[in-house]
């Protein structure tokens, strides 16, 4: 075991501090040190997307980020989407559209979808499929996932309209 490094980061809105080895990925730190097991390991080489998190608002594979690299950065995981008021509109849309089966890829897909809808209000089917191509789902055939993201985009738009009016 090599020496551990102290890391300070903002995770799901909270300032946290943890100790990790440089070789531990952000995914390992989230899961094994911080107990945030919502982010999943599917391949550990950036090809499945199950570990997707937002790093400073940008979707990344947390298996390809070292824990020590997030010193001073901001991370959002699936655990940070819902709050006490209830599910995030994306989560609600996935629930309503039956867009999950086993659910293992879903945290990564929700995070990636959030990153998309944070920057684009009305993505086309092709755009959603391209954006999510790095998030493998073996159960659903993607149909209901794409529909749920489209519906969530509409819900978010509606919510923004209500806030603005």
């Amino acid at each position, binding site marked *: 075991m090599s020496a551990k490094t102290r890391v300070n980061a903002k995770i799901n809105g909270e300032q946290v501090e943890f100790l990790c080895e440089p070789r531990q990925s952000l995914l390992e730190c989230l899961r094994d040190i911080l107990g945030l097991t919502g982010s999943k390991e599917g391949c550990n080489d950036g090809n499945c997307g199950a570990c997707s998190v937002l790093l400073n608002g940008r979707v990344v594979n947390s298996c390809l980020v070292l824990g020590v690299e997030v010193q001073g950065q901001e991370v959002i995981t699936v655990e940070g989407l819902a709050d006490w008021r209830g599910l995030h509109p994306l*989560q609600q849309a996935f629930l309503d559209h039956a867009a999950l089966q*086993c659910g293992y890829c879903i945290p990564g897909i929700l995070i990636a979808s959030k990153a998309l809808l944070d920057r684009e209000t009305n993505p086309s089917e092709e755009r959603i499929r391209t954006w999510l191509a790095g998030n493998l789902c073996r159960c659903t055939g993607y*149909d209901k996932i794409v529909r749920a993201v489209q519906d969530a985009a509409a819900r978010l738009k509606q919510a923004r309209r209500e806030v603005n009016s």
Partner: protein
Amino acid sequence: MSQDKHSLAGGTNYQVVGTRPPRHDAPDKLTGRALFGPDTKLPGMLYGKMVRSPHAHAHIRSIDTRRAASFPGVYAVVTAQDFRWNEDPGAKLDESAINFAYLQENMLAREKVLYVGHPVAAVAASSNHVAEEAAELVDVQYDVLPAVTDVGAAMRPDAPLLHEHLITQSLSKPGQRPSNVASHFQHVKGDPSQGFAQAEVIVEHEFTTSTVHQGYIEPQACTAWWGLDGNLKVWTTTQGAFGMRDQLAKLLHHPMSSILVIPTEVGGAFGGKLPIFIFLEAVAALLSRKANRPVKMIMTRAEVFLATNPTSGAYLKAKMGATREGRITAVQAELYFEAGAYPSASVIGYFGFAMGFMFAPYDLPHGQIDAYDVVVNKPRTAAYRAPGVTQVNFPAEQLIDELAVKLGMDPIAFRLKNVVHQGSELIDGTSHGSIGAEEVLRAAQSSGHYGSPLQGPHHGRGVAQGYWGNWGAHSSCAISVNGDGTVSLVSGSIDLSGTRTTVAMQAAEVLGLSLERIKSSVGDTDSIGYTEMSGGSRTTFATGIAAITAAQDVVSQMRGRAALLWGVEVQDVSFDQGIFTTHRGGGRQMTFAEVAERLAETGGPVTGRANVDPQGWGGAFGTHIVDVQVDPETGKVDILRYSVVQDVGKAVHPSYVEGQMQGGAVQGIGWALYEGYQYNARGDMLNPGFLDYKIPTALDVPMIETIMVEVPGPNHPFGVRGVGEIPIVPPPAALANAIYRATGVRVTDLPMTPVRILEAMGVI
């Protein structure tokens, strides 16, 4: 009891069945709270890691674990020596014939390693990284042997033998000479030579399919904790907690009652996590016992590919003849399945499925099928969604398409002319029960998709259909009534895709309760009766029957309580849609909740129970239609439109039935176009990762249209049929037929990659 069944007899007038309520487990899975196999965390937990063979075929000369054992942070090292060996070859688990010696050898090799990735030892250490480093310190000396990785090579007379004493098992006169052919079975119906003599058109080809993996995103993972009291607890991601417990009991020579298997959420399985073959749990248990600590083992993705249980690649020969009028007169097929390192077909039963269902959609007077299970230096093969059938549907439905072309007939019309009905006799001598084959074909024929014109050059439309027999088997369910009128339902069925909900919906229908008032859980092996693994498309059918039966038990007991409260005879109390009614005393009513509130004063708690073994389930037909565009310069296939038409019996939760149809179709598309194990001459798998083992991404597929045809399944109160497996069967043939119509060439090898299409077209 007749009153209790009222809500079932209505046929289509259901309150809950057929609706689309939210799933019980969805919020946890959407918020990251659901705990999957790799998510278990226990105090003092260690991490286990396998030491795996770098050779495809070798004798183990020696294993020296001393350096690994003394590495800082290492708590235990085990090898095959730590197993008590089972020599019993004939034990049966569930309905499979398990050879425990093979099972153990596959978990920790004893004398030989038979594939790259075959485990030879395991270590438990304080962290995953330390375990990985220590595993590299286990010194294994091998004498390397030549390897065979396909059936052709394995069946040559001079092929190296994986098992020096393996005699082909068959019903013919036993052979004497060992070979790599583990078994051979044959079905003959009628007189095939006469059938071919009657044929006016005969088509015949050879086909191959690649080894493919179920490709679940969650790797195999488990945590074992062997207490000093002898009680072993195992948290694991499995399709069958009871099967796992029973296997562990046998493998570890430990009483079943001292083993508790706690099933975690399962991140995809598709036949790859059946408890028939297990890979980690017994080893984690041995490590835990030795270290006196809980031990977690998680496979890497490479380990999942190299050393779990992909499904069989196959070499297939098939022939079909028909008259000019379009009647099929005879079929003949030879099926050579890769077993992997150990005999496999007899365990998973894919011989039976492949031979039985290959031509099951067609009424055939004559036919012969021979199937062979051939061991090769690859991981042991197992089930993948409709095991054995996708491979054989690929040739069968291409021959059908080719005959339709040669006869100048519409491909659906040709199929309708030969379609099976109830009572049609299959090639294995069994007969179809109530089936919706013709209904599905007619729905496909009249679909908007089939009626639409094709758009442009290099476009083609393909059709294929398939059959899967489904399953019944044992299930247990208990329903406890709570004081506020809610109920808690526990079943033993692992929930792979929403069955907690589809099972509870059936209980809700009987109890007249809305689904929100039912809490539905998956029990561990101490909390509910034996329940067969979730597989064979059985769960919503068989565990649904268990839930219905348990709910009927609840209603029956609650009627007694209502009778007591009213002071009437129990036969004077009826129950309908959640309301107890008696016509005595001027007519009175109580809701389910009102009776539930008064259980304490009428005799105490009420729990309904059921242990069932339903028989006579109905099989499932599906017809797929696909439009493709093939780039004539690159051979790349774009799927433009895809439709799945399927007999679903009764769709309990239509959204999740659609999900099964869509997900199965896309897995079939992956099998058809992208997926396959690749090997070099040494027997190394070249693509053990999602970069080069290519499963479809969101961008590779269009929306998958679904048409649910509801021909009620037999022997289920709501007419439920299994729906999960059949959707994977037709896609490879449907795509091959579409590619043929787009390019004029038939591709007979899976996957139908761009390079193979260009080669078939003669471009390269």
